């Protein structure tokens, strides 16, 4: 009895070891294959992209510094005028920030409604949850530039088309994040409110909002950072603000590089400042929630 048990031990260990090694081997093989496929995709993708680009990667690599150097040297020569230019383009910067702020406000409001209507347990019409989710999916999927270009055609250039375009995308993106937060909201408060005869909107405002507000504000702030960048980019296609001025300054080429430099500085400074401020505030919001 004891003998058989003892003689069985090495056998078991051996078999465990071989099967473990076999598993490790197989895992390594799969891992290696995945890595190989990934590397092949990267290399072939790079070759295709390089092939379809106007200038090649290796010819262009040493020219990367040329344009910034040109801009910087010209800006340095005319450095005395730089403060005046910064002041000149400040209104454009304000417009860019305004576009981002208003679209974040409207987008957050839209995202709020969409998220509450599309979350299980909170929705006013539970049967329509899939509909509201699809609506926010589509709103999220449409790149801002698509709506902006179409609206520029109808409404003419200016801040409003960009604002609407960014707001629509923001509403879709925030609806998804908001509803992820709302899903974890405690339903007891809502049940309590319902027992007192509160309407749907009262239940949402008094029962859900206080639970989710810190996260919602934090997501909205993050979106605001993203929207500043988006509104600068949309300006480049004709929607006003700093991007529009940048395109004009660039179209002039050498001789107006000081203006381009002033715009670069404004844009860079704004993005960094808002990033820092909002990330500090967001940290405070989410940390405060943990306590």
């Amino acid at each position, binding site marked *: 009895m004891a003998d058989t048990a003892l003689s069985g031990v090495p056998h078991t260990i051996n078999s465990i070891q071989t099967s473990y090694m076999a598993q490790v081997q197989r895992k390594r093989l799969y891992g290696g294959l995945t890595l190989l496929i*990934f590397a092949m*995709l*990267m290399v072939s*993708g*790079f070759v*295709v*992209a*390089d092939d*379809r*680009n*106007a*200038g*090649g*990667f290796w010819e*262009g*690599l040493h*020219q*990367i510094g*040329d*344009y*910034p150097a040109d801009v910087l040297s010209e800006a340095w020569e005319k450095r005395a005028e730089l403060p005046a230019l910064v002041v000149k383009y400040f209104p454009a910067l304000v*417009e860019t920030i*305004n576009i981002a*702020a*208003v679209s974040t*406000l409207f987008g957050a409001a839209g995202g709020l409604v969409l998220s509450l209507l599309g979350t299980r347990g909170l929705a006013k019409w539970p049967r329509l949850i899939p509909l509201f989710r699809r609506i926010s*999916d*589509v709103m*999220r*999927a*449409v*790149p*801002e*530039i*698509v709506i902006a*270009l*179409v609206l520029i*055609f*109808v*409404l*003419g250039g*200016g*801040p*409003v088309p960009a*604002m609407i375009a960014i707001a629509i995308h923001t509403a879709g993106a925030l609806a998804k994040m908001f509803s992820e937060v709302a899903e974890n909201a405690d339903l007891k408060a809502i049940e309590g409110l319902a027992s007192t005869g509160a309407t749907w909107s009262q239940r949402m405002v008094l029962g859900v909002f206080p639970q989710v507000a810190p996260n919602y504000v934090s997501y909205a702030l993050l979106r605001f950072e993203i929207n500043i*960048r988006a509104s*600068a*980019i949309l300006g*480049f*296609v004709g929607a006003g603000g700093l*991007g529009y001025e*940048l395109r004009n300054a*660039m179209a002039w080429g050498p001789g107006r590089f000081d203006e381009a430099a002033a715009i*670069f500085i404004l*844009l*860079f400074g704004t*993005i*960094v400042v808002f*990033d820092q401020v909002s990330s500090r505030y967001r940290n405070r919001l989410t940390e405060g929630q943990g306590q």
Partner: protein
Amino acid sequence: MTAVDLNHTKFEAEKIFQRKRLFGFAIPAVILAYLTYIFFAFDVEGLAGRANWDNAMTLASDSWSHKVHVTRDNRSGEISYAVEGERKGRYPEGERPTWVSGDEVIVVDLGGDHIVRYLPQNRTEIEIPDFPLIQVQAEGRTLTSNLPADLPDWISASDRRIGITTPEGRITLTGARTEVFNYFAGWELFWFTLDSPYHGHGITSIVFGERIDPTRSNIAGAVSDWWNNAMWRHKDVAWAIGETVLMAFLGTMGAAMVALPLAFFAAKRFTPIMVVRAATRRLFDFVRGVDALIWTVVLARAFGPGPLTGALAILITDTGTFGKTFSEALENVDQKQIEGVSSTGAKPLQRYRFGVIPQVVPVLLSQILYFLESNTRSATIIGAITGGGIGLMLTQAIQTQKDWEEVAYYIVLIVVMVMFMDWLSGWLRGRLIGQKD
């Protein structure tokens, strides 16, 4: 609790409530004031004046319909028939739409008893129900017509140009040419252009029917004619979408590969030297702060327009974002696992590989996959600026301001592409790090 304490607490509570109440009113008031300021700053009032509702109408109707032009060149007397008035959509010699008849007198039946007749000597007759017969004579650059001075608002007339808009179609007359636009629902020539032998054949007659073009098999010929369709450019569109996805893929993955090693330098746990850490973090902040727009502009100067420029712009910007999040993830790794690995005598590289990487991979992967989807959208926008991918095709189609059905087609494709990438990244996330919901 004494009465003094209670009073104090009461007072405190009262103060908090007052503050809450103040906020409850102040925040909406501030937002309202801000929106009022925006209303004037953005000149929303003037917007109604600037808006071009005709453009909106053309956009809305053209995106799901097409028009066939019947054009008479008044100098040569030649009559041509073309879909959307484009050379690529022209009917082959000797063919014309079924709603056009007559040889000496060309009769264009727009439907609903609206009939246009092209008579010899550049004369035109237009029959519209409940309106007297319109007769126009073109001579040189001027037009003479029997139109009364008092015109309904669907006719605009001068001695140089007459435009008539009816629900059935549009007619424009100038000295040089007479044109009739007949509108139909649907995207015409989506499958085959008029010069393809497969035009007008259904799917069953192509797959199962007799050989239509004697030189090629039906399926191969049909696929190649569809792929090379000059009107809808399916081949170019497919390439453009491929380019956009490629930009997003190369940019995201490249950024992750660059950011991962750098993130170690920015994490306190792995880099005790303050200067190195601070330098790496400032580098991340810098490339993130410069933003994709400026990177695109700068890189386009060096590499020229194309997908590579877009991919590199995404790569550089996202290196900053990834570097930040990766280093935060690295800060939060559990030291115990690393100690366990080093207790077996692992060298530093092995410690990273088996002690650190397994802990952070789920965080990194979900971040990367999320960015893959969002960068597909960015690549569309960057493509419009730098000149590559579906973004460029869309901007071009919108700027020419006539192919709205193509614009609608591209928009649908872009939305489908982004939703597909969204689904793909969710699916990959589920496969690689386990489904969360």
